[in-house]
């Protein structure tokens, strides 16, 4: 039996498809008996769905660095 902490970790991993088969199995069993974790898991999945649906964009770190440099140059 795995702990809730481990279950949360696997749950987070599986949001990014990085959980192994055995881990997923462990999580399934845990979710059957633990109400809190199954609630968390449901919400976590929903968050992933929302993030996918929103089609988020973000600037890469390199772009941000360039922006900072330009801002610095503008300030002087």
């Amino acid at each position, binding site marked *: 039996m795995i702990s809730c902490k481990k279950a949360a970790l696997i749950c*987070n991993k599986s949001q990014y498809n990085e959980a192994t088969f055995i881990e997923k199995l462990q999580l399934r069993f845990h979710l059957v008996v633990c109400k809190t974790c199954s609630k968390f898991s449901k919400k976590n999945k929903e968050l992933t769905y929302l993030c996918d649906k929103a089609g988020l*964009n*973000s*600037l890469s770190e390199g772009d941000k660095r360039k922006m900072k440099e330009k801002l610095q140059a503008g300030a002087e």
Partner: protein
Amino acid sequence: MAAIKYEKQKESKMRVVTSNSRNFTSDRTSMAKNQLQPNTWVDAYADYLFNYAIARINDAEIAKDLVQETFLAGLKSAKNYKGDAAERTWLIAILKRKVIDHYRKTNSKKGKAEVKINYSAQTDAEGDWLEEQIADPFSNYEHSNLENEELGLAIQSCIGKLPQKQAQVFSMKTIQGISTEDICKELDINPSNLWVMIHRARTALMGCLNETWY
């Protein structure tokens, strides 16, 4: 006896008044706290502004340039900032003007000529160009697009509230889809560290989005 009671009452009333006025002054100071801090702009607002721009421009490069211009313009006119609005609102207002200016430029005589050449070059190959221009009456696209943009901005502003490191890890992992190993290498952390940060970020985001979006 009665006089003493009265005095006490008066005193307690006075105390209430002073405590009220103290609250009032603290309100004032928090109102005046709306100050510009240009060094934090990029970390705090770049993604939010970028999402706002890209929903209207549909071109990542141009959107990026507009965000950059917005920051520079904000810096330039920083002395006109009165502190009435929050920093982000103020920057969005500038960005809005930039977007309008962008479209105005492409719709000017010179810009129109360029667009037309592009269009005819496209239709030469296709032939049936009238159909492309007709709106699909059954399309749900515009509406869902609008909703998704709102959702995107909500998520982005929630991410902005996270501690900087968590926000960085979360956006690298979720939005840019960088693999765990690469993130660990770039930020010099170990995987379990990364998952803890992801966990905290996700929990905070769930709480933040909870009221409106679940």
